[in-house]
């Protein structure tokens, strides 16, 4: 019991504390490829610490919803870090709270709250971003659900930990349904974490999707939301790595859990490398083409579902 508590603590703390680092490394490498020296890899931490010290300016139209939602959004991501294999390959305390699909619903809950609380500010720019975010949501959410089910249909259980074990088997790893699900989930990861070709954060307000949701936030509240989105990127990215692309190598036991931190770091370097290549090679799609991008991801995920039931007939 003690052992599992320590493993739990390692996983949850790793998600909370290390997630900004990966974002920092990604930004640094992106800058380097774009011929700049770029910011420190610890920049996300610096930003967060500075923001925590600042006051929060709140729109006169906003209510308590605007002020307290960031805490809940942050907590939802912390909760998710209990339930999916993002560092440690075996169930930890509270893991059965939700299954894979439940996890997807929690991600949706965070997105929902984020949108609602941002809208509470009454800003037109937030509404602009919201109108885009929710119009792609139906494909994004559907793909997230179907991809998670692709996993479930292969293993006969909606438990990511079982899937992880399953995927380690090369015969299965190379199977068509797994490959398709991986591709679909990767595309979704790009969308959900605001990467090209869907979105890139810049100064232009007209192109904002997710950025618009933090447009009115400042100070501590902004820090929480930023941190939350780093965690989201880490959580989804780690699922992508551990369940889909690189299921191997994770160790068990307390020592194993500590080793896992290093292993996850290596895995993440791989994912960051791919992300950098994509982020520096592509331009932003036309807004309505994002729908096509997501529709492709969705269709691929459905195909993967179909393969999974037909292949093992």
């Amino acid at each position, binding site marked *: 019991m003690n052992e599992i508590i320590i493993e739990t603590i390692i996983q949850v703390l790793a998600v909370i504390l290390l997630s900004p680092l990966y974002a920092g490394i990604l930004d640094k490498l*992106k800058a380097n*490829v*774009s*011929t*700049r020296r770029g910011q420190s890899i610890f920049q996300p931490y610096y930003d967060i610490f500075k923001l925590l010290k600042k006051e929060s300016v709140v729109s006169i139209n906003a209510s308590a919803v605007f002020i307290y939602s960031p805490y809940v959004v942050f907590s939802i991501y912390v909760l998710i870090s209990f339930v999916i294999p993002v560092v440690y390959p075996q169930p930890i305390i509270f893991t059965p709270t939700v299954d894979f699909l439940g996890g997807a619903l929690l991600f949706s809950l965070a997105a929902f709250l984020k949108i609602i609380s941002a809208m509470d500010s009454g800003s*037109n720019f937030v509404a*602009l971003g919201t*109108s*885009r975010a929710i119009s792609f949501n139906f494909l994004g959410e559907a793909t997230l659900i179907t991809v998670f089910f692709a996993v479930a249909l292969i293993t006969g259980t909606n438990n990511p930990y079982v899937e992880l074990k399953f995927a380690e088997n090369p015969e299965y790893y190379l199977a068509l349904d797994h490959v398709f699900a991986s591709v679909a989930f990767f595309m979704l990861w790009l969308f959900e974490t605001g990467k*090209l*070709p869907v*979105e*890139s954060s*810049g*100064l*232009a*307000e*007209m*192109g904002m999707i997710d950025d618009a949701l933090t447009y009115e936030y400042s100070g501590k509240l902004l820090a929480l939301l930023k941190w939350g989105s780093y965690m989201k990127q880490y959580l989804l990215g780690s699922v992508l790595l551990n369940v889909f692309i690189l299921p191997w190598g994770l160790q068990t036991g307390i020592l194993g859990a500590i080793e896992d931190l290093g292993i996850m770091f290596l895995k993440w370097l791989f994912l960051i490398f791919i992300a950098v290549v994509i*982020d*520096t*090679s*592509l*331009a*932003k*799609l*036309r*807004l*309505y*083409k994002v729908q096509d991008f997501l529709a492709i991801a969705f269709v691929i995920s459905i195909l993967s579902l179909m393969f999974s039931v037909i292949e093992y007939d």
Partner: protein
Amino acid sequence: MRRKIGKLGKFCLYNDGYVEREEEIEKRTYTPAYGSFDFVYGPSAGGLMESVRLDIITFGEYIRNVIVNPYYKSRTIKIKGKGINDALLYIERINAPFTASHTIAFLMAIEKALGIEVPYELLLDRIAEIELERIRNNLLVIERLTESAGFQVPMNSLLWLVEKVNRIIGKYFGHRYFFGVNYYGGINVEEGKIKDLEIIEKEFNDLFNSLIESRIFIDRLQGNGIIEDEESIGPAARAANLEYDARNEEIGLPYKDLEFKISTYDSADAFGRFIVRGKEIFESLNMLSRINLKKIEYKGKLAEGKAIGRVESPSGDLAYYVEVSNEGKISEIYLLSPSSVNIKLFSKSMVKNIFTDLPFNWESFGIWISEIGVKFE
């Protein structure tokens, strides 16, 4: 063929002259419709380099109409009654990115009004200034386009180029924006052939050719902001295959001797304007390689007169009408800035596009707000 350029004070300027005429102000109206509202973008926005307010009348994402208000930062320039060289200090600061075009057009108007013969080499120096300015501005425009597309590598490479050109200008002219370079009676310049241009050509060639091949990027520009208007100027006109270019016309600068070739394209959208600007960079580099900068002076004189000076600025025709009194003071001055024409074209071309097209279209016109809202006093 006669073409209309635009409104120059109380005149209407044509490529071969001007007529006195009060231009009726075109008031663009829109009828209210269910669900449509006015989305205010600006005046102080991160995506716009200067302060300008865009009232976007929209059904949501779809643009019904754009009303541009460039008068937020309009400055009053107290220039009347000042001597020519004093006035130049003000003219320089109307629009820094186009300073060479502004000062040269102004000086050409003065020189024409006073009947001064300008030495040929000085005219070549002036062409060098304008062309360097064009290169910088076109690079910046293309950079802004790639920035809007979140296209990291070309964006940074282009910024690198812009800074490079700025340094070249600074090195040869002492100031990165041609402030204090032109004056009534001569020019401040380092003599010699401009070096390092081949680096720019090589780098830009590589970038431009790859950008044209980038499907996603081109897709953002094609079909965006289509404008085929007889009254358009600059790259916007040339992209629509209209051979409108002051450099091709008799304006007093010896472009013909540098074998200037006009660049046109047959797609009147942001993509066409992007291509035209790209091609013009090569053309300008080509012309610059034929110019040897020389420091030359000429003698001014005191006389009365009025005239128009016109150049092709990076974004289209730029003209000054100047009246000089016999004490050598400016008594009347009008400005036709390319941005004031382009802003109308922009606003027309934006209709029926969507919000995310707006930055691309806006940048493709190369509009500078600072030169629009200028009031002379």
